[in-house]
């Protein structure tokens, strides 16, 4: 993961964040006002990425809530496929977002705007969603629309070359259903269409080249200028009699680039009195490669579209995570109703089946196309403090 890939999906994920804001509310009652201070670190695959965030959510009237978030992430190092040709990079991304939510009767309307800036990538996202409770508040229907505009550039030793724009439109439909006193289930469908400059300018494809000492040469990737993807996730949460919760989810993903991805996740939440919440999670993700992806082409320009981006390669990853939340002010103090501190750590193992480690391996020991397959581990830490008032 390098800075470009990171921000590539920031806008989309920022949108997810916006929708998650709606997701976090129950029925028609806006939850408590809160402020969160957040710090995270991702270490793995030659990269260190830290993230810092501050979020405030405040009711303006009984029906209207405003939320603002400021997020900064800093990337140092570069993922393996960039390190193969480029030097270490250091980059800072700043993201500001604002959301307004309005509740009327059984409906919640939400509008949000996210702006993300770094020296070679700009992104603006607007999203609108509607959440409706029905059937005695047993069913919740959510509809969302998202529009993103990105400006993609390339940093060449401090000089930014603006390469193009990318635009994306997304639709979300979700249904959440209470099945029993102990069980809730949901289905979410998401469709996104992207247009424009969709490639990562810092990554290249490689092709056999006997004139090069390495046996291969690199060239700029050529991506299609459109992509449409569909994802469907089903999830269920069950309350265990001794007071704990278990969640299972499965997501199916497919797109016009030929990628099919399956995600399986299991979470367990165990509270202790009103003070501690312990959580454990296990997740498995597997995908095939995009239809224009190859670890090694035979010659330059072999096809109309060529990519060697890790995200498009076939492989899987397994995550094991644990989270501890401690309420250091369980019953509040002065204006705070409650305050908690959370520590979350995940260990992710990535394995690729058609992406090779060309940073550390090559001729004379390994012929091009026969280097060992790449795999690496990453650790993700999150520490945050949440104050409810």
């Amino acid at each position, binding site marked *: 993961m390098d800075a470009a890939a990171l921000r590539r999906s920031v806008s989309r994920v920022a949108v997810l964040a916006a929708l998650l804001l709606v997701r976090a509310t129950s029925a028609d009652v806006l939850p408590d006002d809160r402020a969160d201070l957040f710090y995270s670190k991702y270490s793995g695959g030659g990269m260190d990425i830290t993230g810092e965030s501050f979020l405030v959510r405040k009711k303006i009237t*009984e029906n209207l809530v405003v939320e603002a978030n400021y997020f900064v992430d800093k990337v140092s190092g570069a993922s393996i496929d960039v390190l193969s040709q480029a030097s270490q990079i250091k980059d800072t991304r700043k993201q500001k977002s604002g959301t307004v939510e309005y509740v009327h009767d059984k409906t919640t309307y939400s509008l949000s705007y996210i702006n993300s800036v770094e020296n070679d990538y700009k992104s603006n996202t607007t999203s609108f969603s509607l959440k409706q409770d029905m059937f*005695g508040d047993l069913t919740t229907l959510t509809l969302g629309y998202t529009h993103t505009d990105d400006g993609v550039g390339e940093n060449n030793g401090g000089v930014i070359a603006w390469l193009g724009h990318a635009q994306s439109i997304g639709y979300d439909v979700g249904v959440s259903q209470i099945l029993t006193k102990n069980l809730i289930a949901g289905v979410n469908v998401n469709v996104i269409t992207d247009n424009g400059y969709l490639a990562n300018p810092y990554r290249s494809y490689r092709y056999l080249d006997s004139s090069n000492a390495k046996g291969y040469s690199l060239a700029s990737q050529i991506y299609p200028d459109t992509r449409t993807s569909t994802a469907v996730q089903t999830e269920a949460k069950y309350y265990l009699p001794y007071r704990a919760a278990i969640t299972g989810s499965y997501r199916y993903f497919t797109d016009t680039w030929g990628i099919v991805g399956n995600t399986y996740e299991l979470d367990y939440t165990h509270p202790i009195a009103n003070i501690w919440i312990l959580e454990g999670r296990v997740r498995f993700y597997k995908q095939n490669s995009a239809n224009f992806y190859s670890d090694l082409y035979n010659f330059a320009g072999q096809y109309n579209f060529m990519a060697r981006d890790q995200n498009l390669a076939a492989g899987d990853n397994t995550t094991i995570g644990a989270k501890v939340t401690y309420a250091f002010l369980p*019953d509040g103090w002065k204006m705070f109703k409650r305050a908690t501190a959370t520590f979350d750590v995940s260990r992710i193992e990535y394995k690729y089946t058609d992406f090779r480690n060309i940073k550390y391996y090559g001729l004379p020991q390994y012929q091009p196309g026969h280097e060992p397959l790449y795999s690496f581990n990453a650790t993700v830490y999150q520490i945050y403090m949440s104050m409810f008032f």
Partner: protein
Amino acid sequence: MHSFTAKIFRRCALTAIVIASAAFAADTGGPAPAFTLTALSGGQTALSQYKGQVVLVNFWATWCGPCQQEMPLLDQMYKKYKPAGFTLIGVNVDKEEPAVKELLARKPVSFPVLLDPANQVSKAYHVDEMPSSVIIDRKGDIRYIHRGYRPGDENDYQDRIRQLIRE
């Protein structure tokens, strides 16, 4: 395709409205179902004890945010109109007692709190929203059911109570 969907929507909306209005009509105007419940402070309390007074029965739970929002306001209302022949009964629907005791220890109220852990009274009163406030007149008939709570609703309660006290 579109007109077909629109037709279904219209039919559906009409059915929903009919059912909704039917639900309203069924409860108000009839006699309030009798009940006897254990009070949090001990002993048995029956609704019939309050015949002749205007009674507001408020169904609430410790896990219900809006319920807790309205409690202090209900308490104020109780103290204000009690001399005029009004009483307020809080019927708690929690399955376990400790949480109720703990909450009321932190935020006490002066009106009687009765416990309905088996939810028999909630069922009898067709409680379909939390919180629910049922206002009963001096003759023992249900005159008004208020579902949910939003700030400002207490004015609504007060108007109804004053009207029934004057009867």
